[in-house]
């Protein structure tokens, strides 16, 4: 049994809303597995089923070799879960929170200190401070420490970097890499596409369905079209003009650029350049780029 998570056709509805419509995936032991998708895609619901907080309507969920429904008691000792929302006691101090979670798992902070030392050392100077008074980045580190204090085999992180500054995000991912080296399987969800490339494998999820599962590199390699990034001084007119181009496939804004995919792969840079020149665009820049995960995502959403 070298799969940490094996999900077979999991379905879950809330009244009319079908949150999960047959999710099948497997996560190998020791992987950092990313679940990428927009808000409302079903990420949290899937996580709640994996962490035994919710029962699926149909399908089988096997976590660490145990059935998530019948084996929940044993499983809870082996899973560390960090919900998307900060869920520690705000009126307890940093130290008290950590000790509390250690004791309810029947362990002590000292016993597993080496596992969290890297992370906890950042917030240890503030250990007497109430958790509610910590900054976002520190809250996140405390939450991670508390999720790890019982030495889980599987760590489930629901959007851990949402609302956290760029530096803390980078730090956080470095911590995850270190935890992976200690043999912990990590399942993480994120709405940030750039974080996807840091995972070993990712699943793209949308509307309760898995669109694709693969390594970040293979996912982008599979992108079937050539893609151009285009820039000019008038962003809005640029988008509408490109959409009017006779060979335009997909056109969407991406930061300060517009990503353009042609109807076929016959479109060349020069062609676009000339077309935009004729329409009096200034400072035009057109270059072919390698597709990113976001391009793939938008493409897959269109196809399905």
């Amino acid at each position, binding site marked *: 049994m070298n799969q940490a998570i094996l999900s077979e056709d999991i379905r879950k509805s809330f009244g009319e809303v079908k949150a999960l419509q047959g999710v099948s995936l497997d996560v190998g032991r020791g992987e950092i597995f990313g679940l990428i998708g927009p808000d409302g895609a079903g990420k949290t619901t899937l996580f709640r089923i994996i*962490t*035994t907080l919710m029962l699926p309507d149909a399908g089988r969920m096997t976590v660490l070799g145990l059935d998530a429904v019948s084996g929940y008691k044993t499983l809870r000792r082996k899973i560390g*879960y960090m919900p998307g*929302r900060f869920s520690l*006691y705000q009126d307890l101090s940093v130290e008290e929170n950590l000790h509390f*979670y250690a004791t309810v798992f029947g362990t002590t902070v000292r016993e597993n200190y080496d596992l969290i030392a890297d992370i906890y050392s950042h917030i240890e100077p503030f250990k007497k401070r109430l958790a509610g008074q910590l900054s976002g980045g520190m809250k996140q580190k405390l939450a991670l420490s508390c999720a790890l204090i019982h030495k889980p085999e599987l760590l489930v992180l629901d959007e851990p970097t949402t609302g956290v500054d760029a530096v803390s995000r980078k730090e956080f991912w470095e911590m995850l890499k270190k935890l992976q080296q200690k043999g912990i399987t990590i399942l993480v969800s994120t709405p940030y596409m750039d974080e996807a490339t840091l995972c070993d494998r990712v699943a793209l999820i949308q509307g309760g369905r898995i669109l694709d599962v693969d390594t970040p590199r293979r996912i982008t390699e599979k992108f079937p079209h050539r893609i151009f990034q285009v820039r000019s001084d008038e962003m809005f007119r640029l988008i509408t003009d490109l959409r009017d181009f006779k060979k335009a496939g997909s056109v969407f804004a991406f930061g300060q650029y517009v990503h353009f995919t042609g109807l076929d792969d016959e479109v060349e840079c020069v062609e676009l350049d000339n077309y935009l020149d004729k329409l009096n665009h200034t400072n035009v820049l057109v270059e072919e780029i390698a597709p990113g995960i976001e391009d793939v995502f938008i493409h897959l959403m269109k196809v399905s």
Partner: protein
Amino acid sequence: MRTMLFLLRKEFKQLFRDRFIGKAIFAIPIVQMLVLVPAITYEIRDVKMCIVDHDQSVESRKLVSQLEGSSFFRVKYTTFSEREANDLMHRDKVDLILQIPSGFGRETGRGNPVRLMVTANAINASRAQLAWGYFSGVMRDYQMNLVTAKAGTASLTMPRIDLTSRHWYNESLNYIYYMLPGVLGILVAAIGFMLAGLNMVKEKESGTIEQINVTPVRKYQFIAAKMIPYIVIGLIDLAIGISLGMLAFGMPFEGSAALLFLSSFIFMIGALGLALLISTITSSQQQYMFAGFFFLIIFMLMSGIFTPMDSMPAWAQKINLLNPVAYIMRINRMIMLKGSTFADISRDIFSLLVLSVLFTFFAIRKYRKTV
């Protein structure tokens, strides 16, 4: 068992860390006892009267001075105009108007029946009723004097029945003694019902329950750890309240303290069970406040603290079978005023026990399903 200990430690820590609640839970019984108990009273003094004396005879003055002599009435106005008297009532200056018709003295002297006219302000119905009761008492005395004065010459030809009454279990009809055991019940109910319920919803609202649910902590452990601190606090508050009542108001305590605390313990389980039940169907502290307040008000007003339960309609008495506050109200009064023993009130105690177990049972069942 160790887990239980850790959970309890956490609960107490959080409770006393809250600066306001940590102090308020002990200040509340003191304030309630010292303010509520003497404030809620049915005794009325100084019923403001207006006399419209059309007679101006010796007899009419005698009647007025007899009214003034009692501690209940204060003659604030005298007038000859009925309209002016009504106007005073309208402006809330007087509570009671007594009109004495002309010829009152002459007719009573002859032994003929006379009609007096009394108008009472019934905005506050119970006050009007009590004022009327006191007034008829004074009138009865007056009449008796009149009869005996006349009969004195005729050497007692009228049969005379004297009523002597004793008020058992509250000899002096002291309303404080009546209210205090009731207020104690309300106090314990409020602590358990509001504080514990809000605490439970808070875990849900802030999402902390999610983090607890992924730990090996069992649901019953979590619930018990939520209930126990409030039971302990409720019983401590009860002890403070009783001591204060005895010290400040000389409240008698006829029965067994152990029995009172046992009943209150059972009552608290019921109150907390219900609080838990409501917390499972509400998802924010605001919602809980609203629902909890609704139940607390109904339970309190129907409990018989203000109005005797026997005078409620039959359907209301049926509803009260499900009202834990009604049971504890009765039990408290019986133990404290009457010195009832377990055998005397076992019916109430067992009913309360059944109710408490039922509430808690349903609450835990619902809690398991929803959270």
